[in-house]
């Protein structure tokens, strides 16, 4: 059983803002709705906002939610948070605020708060006539997570939009990989490939790392190598049960210790060359050679 806070349970058992807001032709107000989620994923939210046209304030809000305890509680929390706010103020509400209002959510249920934030954005965009990001591409391409019917295109979009670095983050945002787990390795590969694309793009634009390295002292260079390893390489390896430690730097020869699963993995050479050396070459210098000790 999930560990829910008292606040989550209180709002789940006693929601006060469920239902529909219908347009009754009242002067000075407009009704708008936003829909997100999917029945395949097991949660969906339709948010209804009543907006005072003159003040741009949300004067009432209601929700309809298909989902678990935390999805219903997150919807209730969302409505409580946005009532009385202007639309601009409401757009500032983040999923973290929704989770905080609930006294926290289990990590695997963070996607419920993300759904609230997305529904709010959808409703406000509808109201303002801003075309919604339909993301038709989400339904195209290979199906990665068969448990929840989530495509590679959607995973790529969410990873990019939210700068996600671990498969666990993807689970928390859109559930992909949170079922049987058989696609987690594929999700990791997708993340690595996106990170490579970003790095290559940065390098081809102005490659500040490579330009700066010429002016680096040895100590600064080691610090930069350590920073790239800590921030860009290790999270990916750790997610796969491995790790890497900087051992020594001798000119452009960088010696590292592969640890955990990376140490015993049959593809550790590929990890060394693709995940580590290529990254350091992109970020610091194309002449870098990485060796395992």
């Amino acid at each position, binding site marked *: *059983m*999930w560990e829910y806070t008292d606040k989550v*349970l209180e709002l*789940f*058992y006693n*929601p006060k803002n*469920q*239902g529909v807001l219908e347009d009754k032709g009242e002067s000075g107000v407009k009704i708008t709705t936003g*829909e997100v989620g*999917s*029945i*395949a994923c*097991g*949660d*969906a*939210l*339709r948010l209804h906002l009543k907006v005072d046209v003159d003040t741009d304030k949300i004067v009432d809000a209601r929700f*309809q*939610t*298909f*989902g*678990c*305890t935390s*999805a*219903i509680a997150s919807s209730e929390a969302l409505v409580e948070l946005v009532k009385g706010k202007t639309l601009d103020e409401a757009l500032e509400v983040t999923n973290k605020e929704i989770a905080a209002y609930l006294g926290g959510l289990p990590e*695997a249920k963070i996607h419920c708060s993300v759904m609230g934030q997305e529904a709010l954005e959808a409703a406000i965009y509808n109201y303002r006539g801003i075309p919604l990001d339909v993301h038709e591409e989400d*339904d195209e391409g290979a*199906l990665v997570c068969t*448990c*929840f*019917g989530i495509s590679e295109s959607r995973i790529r979009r969410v990873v990019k939009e939210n700068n996600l670095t671990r498969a666990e983050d993807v*689970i928390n945002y859109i*559930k992909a990989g*949170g*079922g*049987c787990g058989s696609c987690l390795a594929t999700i990791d590969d997708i993340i690595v490939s996106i990170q490579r694309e970003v790095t290559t793009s940065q390098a081809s634009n102005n490659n500040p790392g490579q330009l700066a390295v010429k002016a680096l002292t040895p100590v600064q260079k080691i610090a930069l190598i350590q920073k790239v390893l800590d921030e860009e390489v290790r999270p990916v390896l750790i997610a796969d049960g491995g790790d890497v430690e900087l051992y020594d730097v001798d000119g452009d020869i960088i010696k590292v210790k592969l640890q955990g699963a990376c140490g015993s993995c049959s593809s550790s050479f590929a990890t060394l060359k693709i995940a580590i050396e290529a990254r350091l070459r992109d970020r610091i210098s194309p002449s870098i050679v990485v060796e395992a000790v």
Partner: protein
Amino acid sequence: MQRNCIYLDNNATTKVDPAVVEAMMPYITDYYGNPSSMHTFGGQVAKAVKIAREQVAALLGADETEIVFTSGGTEGDNAAIRAALLAQPEKRHIITTQVEHPAVLTLCKQLETQGYSVTYLSVNQHGQLDLDELDAALTGNTALVSIMYANNETGTVFPIEEIGARVKAKGAIFHVDAVQAVGKLPLNMKNSTIDMLVMSGHKIHAPKGIGALYIRRGVRFRPLIIGGGQQRGRRAGTENVPGLVALGKAAELELLHMEEATAREIKQRDRLEKTILSLISDCEVNGDITQRLPNTTNIGFKYIEGEAILLHLNQHQICASSGSACSSGSLEPSHVLRAMGLPYTTLHGSIRFSLCRYTTEAEIDKVIEVLPGIIQHLRDLSPFKNDQAAWLQQHEQVLTHR
């Protein structure tokens, strides 16, 4: 949650019978000798082990020499499957089903990484196998067929003896995970095609951490756990004497109560099921209602989600399940219901009620009293309703097209 809850989650685990507790207690307190010891103090305990083995054998219709005590169903399944493969190193093919317990499925997935090929038989919308598919999969290279007797989620019972006859004709070893069937269906290993069968104590009112593996005499067996020579060298380690005494007593009680309990459970289960179907719209029974365990009903409530139903039931101190207990904590929709091809509309809102011999009419009444209100409340919250179905259909269509 109080201890006196309405417990309708007996496929997950069961209440330990007070008579079982009474039987095992002396082996925790007074008779703590090691059954392998040569002194009389240990010898008394060895006698208790022998009696327990006889009691378990009686429940299975087996000989006591064919019973190996284990820590439970998962160990039994692992031991049986690995033993079957080690005994036939020249064969590299396994057949199982898409709806097995993770104790079998996870091991099969691992074996695939070790050079074995595995055929996962599909099931139809009622959760039943197509035996022609089994015939087509069986080859001379098939070392093992591992198929559950009854499904833990839907209660669907497979035609095990018919399957076994086909398996034996091809010379493969036949392993049956009977964790859910033992104590609910009559078994007689003497007239069976089953080579190895697994049971678990905590599903039949014994404590957790004890189970048994039946190994037909003559079947080549390689132990999973090695060390001392206990249990004829088939499972090393000092025996969990209080646990296996409990298992023996529980087996004796199951044999004693099975006929009467089965009749009562079928009556209660059918009353619960029929009343729910008559009071609540848009719900349906999942599984094969003609070939089903007497104690299980799995009902899909459209347009709402299972965990939300469970928490509302929990408020009324009613315990049920939204799928396999082993999957709780996971976000995954039930792999069993998915294999049956249920639409997502039903899949996420499926609830399993599993009864036992302690279930009372008043408990069934209470579920019938509160469930319609819970379902109505959650449907009132849901955006997916008959009159607002366009969005829902759009989602279902997207999935269908994949």
